[in-house]
């Protein structure tokens, strides 16, 4: 396991974080000092270089520190609209992974949480995990009713470490806040978000919410929470079967099966967005499990992004927009969207959104007569265009955080559709949930 630095005392971590913070602060202070003497273009180039340098440095340091700082980096990449794109690109490569727990540690954590040993709660309990989770690991068990269960157990001390790290980050991020690259609000949102993920009871509530609200989609399989055996550090739920995408594709499914799965994924995403106003916020392919019957299993509900109904109502007007993007109606829709978040789109924002919407029209032909047209997500040129335009859009400072989030989540979806080589009637799927 390359690059692992043990969790020394919190002093040790503080010294490491302090060093990283000082280095990052130094970079930005250096940029601020020089920028006064640079012309606009040179300043922008200098900023890009600084951002990239900081991004690479921060990612490497966070990886060696392991622990909750990686989660911060991961979430910074997903949620922050105030961070430069170069930084986000580096930080988004981070994948949080708590250290593995041997059976003796698993038993201690389990007993500390539930007051009993695993074999007193389950008929069978496998002391070896079958999957890793970002803050712990997952074990297979069998309940006394004979049901197969998945029991997620959190590594000890994560919550305290996150709280400590955020206290340190608040101080050390001052230079980045002065330069406008990070706001206190962003930090606080991140802190709340990550701390919520350390509470498995919050995840249990999310699962129950999705269970209730996704009941209309018969191809989705969700776990069922065993509330009696769940706490903030242990989450017991029914086992969701299936294979990860790469494993499923290795079985060489037919084009028909790929299309079916692709259509289901497309529908699942837009149903969450347009009907539920809540999106499974970690669209990591590892959280989807595929079966040969075309159903999709969803796991890991630690992070759920909720959107206001007002926002979604206005946003949905941009879907299958059948008029010209130069029209007043389009600009008004954008203004209404931004007004829902208490802001206003600038000219540049409108220009970029027009460009992106053009791409959307290719993916979701707005003409009802073409709604059954199959869009080929397997085309590499198509994916390249999506990536390029998304990148340009994401780099734009005027983009609403909700839009940025949706774009990132959609990126995960399109990536999956491309891997599947799916050809799907995307307009028909979306139109169903737009109620048009």
């Amino acid at each position, binding site marked *: 396991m390359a690059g692992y630095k043990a969790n020394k005392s919190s002093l040790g971590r503080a010294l490491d974080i302090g060093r990283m913070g000082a280095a990052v602060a130094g970079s930005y202070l250096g940029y601020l000092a020089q920028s006064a003497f640079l012309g606009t273009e040179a300043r922008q180039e200098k900023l890009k270089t600084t951002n990239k340098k900081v991004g690479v440095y921060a990612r490497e340091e966070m990886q*060696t520190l392991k622990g909750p700082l990686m989660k911060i980096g991961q979430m910074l990449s997903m949620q922050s609209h105030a961070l430069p794109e170069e930084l986000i690109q580096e930080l988004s490569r981070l994948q949080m992974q708590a250290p593995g727990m041997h059976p003796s540690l698993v038993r201690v954590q389990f007993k500390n949480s539930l007051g009993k040993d695993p074999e007193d709660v389950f008929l069978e309990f496998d002391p070896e995990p079958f999957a890793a989770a970002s803050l712990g690991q997952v074990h297979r068990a069998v309940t006394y009713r004979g049901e197969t269960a998945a029991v997620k157990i959190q590594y000890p001390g994560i919550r305290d470490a996150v709280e400590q790290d955020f206290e340190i980050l608040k101080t050390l991020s001052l230079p980045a806040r002065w330069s406008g690259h990070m706001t206190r609000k962003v930090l606080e949102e991140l802190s709340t978000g990550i701390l919520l993920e350390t509470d498995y009871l919050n995840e249990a509530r999310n699962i129950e919410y999705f269970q209730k609200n996704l009941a209309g989609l018969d191809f989705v399989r969700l776990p069922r929470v065993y509330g009696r055996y769940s706490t903030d550090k242990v989450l017991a739920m029914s086992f969701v079967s299936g294979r990860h995408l790469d494993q499923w594709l290795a079985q060489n499914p037919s084009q028909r099966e790929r299309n079916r799965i692709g259509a289901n994924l497309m529908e699942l995403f837009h149903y969450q967005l347009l009907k539920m106003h809540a999106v499974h916020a970690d669209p990591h392919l590892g959280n989807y499990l595929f079966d040969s019957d075309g159903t999709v299993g969803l796991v890991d509900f630690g992070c759920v992004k909720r959107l206001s109904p007002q926002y979604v109502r206005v946003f949905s007007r941009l879907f299958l927009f059948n008029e010209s993007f130069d029209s007043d109606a389009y600009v008004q829709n954008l203004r209404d969207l931004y007004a829902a978040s208490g802001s206003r789109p600038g000219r540049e924002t409108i220009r970029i959104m027009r460009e992106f919407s053009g791409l959307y029209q290719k993916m979701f032909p707005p003409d009802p007569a073409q709604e059954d047209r199959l869009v080929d997500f397997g085309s590499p040129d198509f994916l390249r265009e999506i990536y390029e335009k998304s990148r340009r859009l994401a780099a734009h400072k005027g983009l609403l955080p909700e839009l940025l989030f949706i774009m990132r989540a959609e990126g995960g979806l399109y990536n999956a559709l491309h891997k599947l080589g799916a050809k799907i009637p995307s307009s028909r799927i979306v139109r169903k949930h737009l109620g048009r």
Partner: protein
Amino acid sequence: MKTATGSRTGKRARHKEKTKEKILQIALGLFRKKGFDHTTTKEISRRAGIAEGTLFNYFKTKDDIALYFFESETESVIGWFGSQKRLQDAPLEEKLFAIIQKQLDYLASYESFICSVLFRAFNPASKLSPMSVESQYLQSRYLRFISGIIEESVAKKEINSLGYFGPYMFWIFYMGILMHWAYDRSKNKESTLAFLDRGLKIAVSIANGRYSNGRL
């Protein structure tokens, strides 16, 4: 064949052990209620229903009671480990974790007493000081136990030989964990658990040469 004298000696020894155990439990109860420093031998003997002089036949000082407690703890954990079939085949890191965790479990009910005792151990004149003859006798039992486990791992080529100092390094590590645990206010002492786990990961990695330049 047991002689009458032999069976009387055995019976006497068992009775002595029983009384010692009774005194210990009473003392621990008083330590928990009043604290180690504020409990007197007079009180202990009165509660045990014996004369103070009789108490001194078993334990000369409170420190001796504390040492007897730790001796019981050591024997208990050694006996427990011997009964754990799965652990015998576990990797070294897990074995050592489980041993320390078992010790901490044993000590959990006597936390305030342990804190007082740790503090006293810094007094060079106290029998609880690691340098005292009495403590070293107790340590040697524990160190032999740990040494056996480490040597087994060396024989299995899990780690490189640690020589004479291996068990001592583990004992020092355990003392550090104990200090951390005594002052750990996190829920379920999770901070100590994490420290213990990660500390052992590093220690075992150093011992098998996988750890260098701060990286595994």
